[in-house]
């Protein structure tokens, strides 16, 4: 046996072995078509080797011609396999080139069988036999078929296709594969060019196409074996990692159990639910029971089923992972709260295949929340929690009764809906300010606060604010107290105080009554006398009209004077409404008014009054009548204190001045004075030194000055007598909107 026969036979055998091996591989893994392609390429290469060996040993022209004709079948199969292999395995090569090669090759095969001899030779005229490689081999002699150019063109296209594919793979970075597979393919395609050269008679050697192609097949086999080896390696690693995964899943299960967390998986196509032992125990399932969606649904509280179903549906459609809190009813009837979190896995077509997630028992938390809610609801204080956007996140029952809204109408609404419209814009600003500097404090210090009820009515309230830092950001808890009743009580107290003050005023004026009457008699006397004088003048024949005019003018003036006296009196005697007479008051004017009222009384008591009033005193926002009452009381007291004094000693001094931003007025007498220890006591109710006094005068003075946020006190003079002082703040702003009708 010559070595040529050995070489070609071995080539064929190797190829067949490869083919068999990869066919078996393909049979096991049918989706991997590359293995089948390699198998078919190897068979074709083996067939080519057999054909070539037969051709070399052909004895007759007919024999040779038949071999040349039929060798095209394995060649076609080989080239088509290569092209598909390149496309499938290397993911390279231009598609149009692939199609061109395959169709050209098919055309060549068809034409091959149409022509009488073959596509290579129009006619084989004879066989030349010579010794080569230790054997006698036959080489054809004949006329080349010009259609054979098509075959050559397919070889050229194949070469281009390989080169292009190799470059693509190289550039992709897979250089080893480019070198091994691409390189062998390019080399094979180049070597295949000896066929046309032999046919055209340019060179004179036997065909060795099988070596060109089997080299490619071996390279392909080598690459695929690499892949298989790698796959095996991966499989091993996978095994290891799966073991680790199982371990970690067990760990997870243990950890999950420890924190009342249950893991679950729902295989959607098979509707099979796997769930940890702990969860089975919690939900009342036996360890071996097979679970599906229906079984799980049945343990959910009937009221929550619909909600859970919607959430699951939503997750299946959108993959949303929103947590859902719901109740389950255990076999013994116990109700537990669970929170469910899930993730949905989808296949390539977007069909949900798997859902897995956790279940967490939040019964304790829910109970705690419920208890907290009950406690919060039970408190007499209305409580509202507001988030940074100013929306209400929590209210208690008291809020519902206080504002007349239902819980649902308030939650997630802007808190401004509870603020009267006229305060809303200010409240917005205040709220933002509070979030910039959150600290527990009362709201709107010094201001009257009102809440707006659903029916639009307003309710006076007091609000305490506390910042609460939570995982959801800063929240503010507002504790609201309805102070309507306290307001009513305050109003009632104010009314009583007012009544008392009025009573005291009337009493004081009673003491002055004779001199006040006198004050009126002056203008009345003047009027009557003037009028009667006029009557007399008019009775004369010779009437002096100028005189009459003057008299009438005087009458008018005196009438006005009487009117003023009456007005002063009436304003002091009038009861009026409490806290409704706030205007800008000049303290000096108040003192002068009171002195006018007391004029006759002072004269009758031989009291002389000196005044030292500061110029340009700022006005005070106050109740004029009440301040007149204070001054009147102090002056009456001073006169009273001096009744025992010698007439020449009966001197009063009234001073006013601006002191530390307050207007201070002092009344100094030269009476008996007040003992040091009683300087404070004199302002107490029912304290009196007079025989007929009620002991209310000074206590009322103090309550009036207190209402005006001022101070009143008494001092002992260095020589004799006492001085009473009171001071009133000039920047004093009384809230006039206290009373809401």
């Amino acid at each position, binding site marked *: 046996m010559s070595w040529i026969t050995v070489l070609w036979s071995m080539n064929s055998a190797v190829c067949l072995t490869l083919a068999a091996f990869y066919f078996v591989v393909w049979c096991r893994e049918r989706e991997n078509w590359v293995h089948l392609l390699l198998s078919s390429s190897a068979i074709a290469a083996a067939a080519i080797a057999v054909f070539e060996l037969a051709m070399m040993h052909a004895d007759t022209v007919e024999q040779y011609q038949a071999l040349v004709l039929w060798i095209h079948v394995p060649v076609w199969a080989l080239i088509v396999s290569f092209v598909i292999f390149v496309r499938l395995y290397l993911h390279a090569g231009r598609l149009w080139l692939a199609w061109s090669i395959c169709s050209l090759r098919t055309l060549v095969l068809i034409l091959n069988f149409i022509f009488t001899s073959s596509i290579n030779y129009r006619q084989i005229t004879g066989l030349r036999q010579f010794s080569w490689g230790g054997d006698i081999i036959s080489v054809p002699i004949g006329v080349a078929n010009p259609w054979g150019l098509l075959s050559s063109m397919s070889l050229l296209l194949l070469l281009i296709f390989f080169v292009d594919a190799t470059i693509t793979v190289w550039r992709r970075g897979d250089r080893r594969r480019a070198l091994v597979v691409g390189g062998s393919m390019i080399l094979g395609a180049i070597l295949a060019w000896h066929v046309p050269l032999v046919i055209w008679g340019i060179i004179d050697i036997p065909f060795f196409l099988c070596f060109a192609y089997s080299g490619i097949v071996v390279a392909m086999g080598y690459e695929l074996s690499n892949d298989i080896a790698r796959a095996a390696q991966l499989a091993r690693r996978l095994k290891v990692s799966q073991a680790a995964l199982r371990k970690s899943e067990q760990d997870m299960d243990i950890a999950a159990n420890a924190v009342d967390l249950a893991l679950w998986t729902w295989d959607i196509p098979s509707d099979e639910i796997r769930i940890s032992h702990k969860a089975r125990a919690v939900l009342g399932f036996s360890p071996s029971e097979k679970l599906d969606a229906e079984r799980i649904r049945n343990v959910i509280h009937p009221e929550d089923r619909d909600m859970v179903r919607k959430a699951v549906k939503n997750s299946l459609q959108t993959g949303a992972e929103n947590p859902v809190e719901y109740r389950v009813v255990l076999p013994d009837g116990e109700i537990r709260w669970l929170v469910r979190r899930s993730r949905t896995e989808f296949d390539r077509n977007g069909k949900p295949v798997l859902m897995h997630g956790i279940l967490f028992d939040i019964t304790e938390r829910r109970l705690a929340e419920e208890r907290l809610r009950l406690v919060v609801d039970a408190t007499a204080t209305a409580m509202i929690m507001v988030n940074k956007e100013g929306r209400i996140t929590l209210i208690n029952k008291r809020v519902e009764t206080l504002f007349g809204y239902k819980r649902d109408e308030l939650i997630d609404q802007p808190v401004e809906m509870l603020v009267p419209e006229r305060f809303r814009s200010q409240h917005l600003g205040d709220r933002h300010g509070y979030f910039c500097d959150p600290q527990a404090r009362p709201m709107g210090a010094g201001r009257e606060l009102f809440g707006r009820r659903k029916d639009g009515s307003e309710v006076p309230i007091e609000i305490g604010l506390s910042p609460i830092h939570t995982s959801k950001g800063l929240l503010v808890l507002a504790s609201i107290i309805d102070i309507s009743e306290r307001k009513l009580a305050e109003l009632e107290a104010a009314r009583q105080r007012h009544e008392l003050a009025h009573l005291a005023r009337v009493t004081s004026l009673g003491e002055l009554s004779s001199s006040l009457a006198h004050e009126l008699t002056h203008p009345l006397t003047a009027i009557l006398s003037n009028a*009667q004088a006029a009557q007399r003048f008019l009775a004369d024949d010779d009437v002096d009209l100028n005189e009459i005019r003057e008299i009438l003018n005087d009458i008018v003036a005196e009438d006005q004077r009487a009117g003023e006296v009456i007005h002063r009196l009436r304003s002091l005697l009038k009861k009026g409404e409490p806290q409704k007479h706030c205007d800008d008051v000049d303290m000096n004017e108040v003192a002068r008014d009171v002195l006018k009222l007391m004029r006759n009384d002072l004269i009758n008591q031989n009291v002389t009054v000196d005044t030292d009033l500061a110029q340009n005193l700022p006005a005070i926002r106050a109740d004029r009548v009440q301040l007149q009452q204070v001054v009147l009381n102090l002056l009456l007291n001073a006169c009273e204190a001096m009744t025992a004094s010698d007439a020449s000693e009966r001197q009063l001094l009234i001073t006013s001045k601006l002191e530390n931003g307050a207007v201070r007025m002092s009344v100094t007498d030269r009476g008996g004075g007040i003992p040091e220890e009683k300087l404070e006591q004199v302002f107490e109710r029912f304290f009196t030194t007079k025989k007929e006094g009620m002991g209310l005068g000074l206590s009322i003075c103090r309550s009036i000055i207190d209402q005006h946020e001022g101070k009143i006190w008494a001092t002992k003079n260095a020589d004799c007598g006492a001085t009473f002082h009171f001071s009133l703040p000039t920047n004093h702003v009384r809230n006039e909107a206290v009373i809401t009708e």
Partner: protein
Amino acid sequence: MLPHPSPTVFVIDDDAAVRKAVSRLLRSAGLAVAVFASPREFLAQYDPDMPGCLVLDLAMPDINGLQLQTTLGKKGCTLPIIFLTGHGDVSKSVQAMKHGAFDFFSKPVKEKDLLPAVRAAIERDAVARREQAKRSEICARLDTLTPREREVLEHVVAGKLNKQIASDLGITEATVKMHRARVMTKMKVQGVADLVRLAEVCGIRGIVTSTPQLCHLCSV
């Protein structure tokens, strides 16, 4: 000084409007009026020879009406005082009347009350002044008597006989007659009855005391 000696109404009131109105009313009745804002002002211009009356406000600062009344009384002023007052000063009005006030009116005072009162007061003042003048003349006559003649006068006025007088004084009846005739001449009277009347005017009511008594009313 007041311009003429016709009777004048002196109005004293610290209230300018009242002062003016009252004076106007008095003027409308044809009376001469002088106004003063305070007792002090009046005292500064006071002339005891001016006839008329006072219309005085009771309550005034510094010196009030009652104090002025007292002061004038001390000065022997006989001007009648009509007080005007506000309501209710009962104790003060009583005090004023006790001290010889001519009349007392509450303000506002009516014309029909005030004008007659003022006229009556002026009249009384005139009478008083006339009597005063007469008294002054008699007193002047009395002053011309010797002490003995005065003693005799007192005994005569007491209705004693010459014999009794002679025995009381320790002189002869003839001497008594001589003194008696001289007294009659000096006192410019015709009979004992006239002498008694004059003596009464001068406040001499018969012999009670032998001390010569001057007419205190004249000693202004």
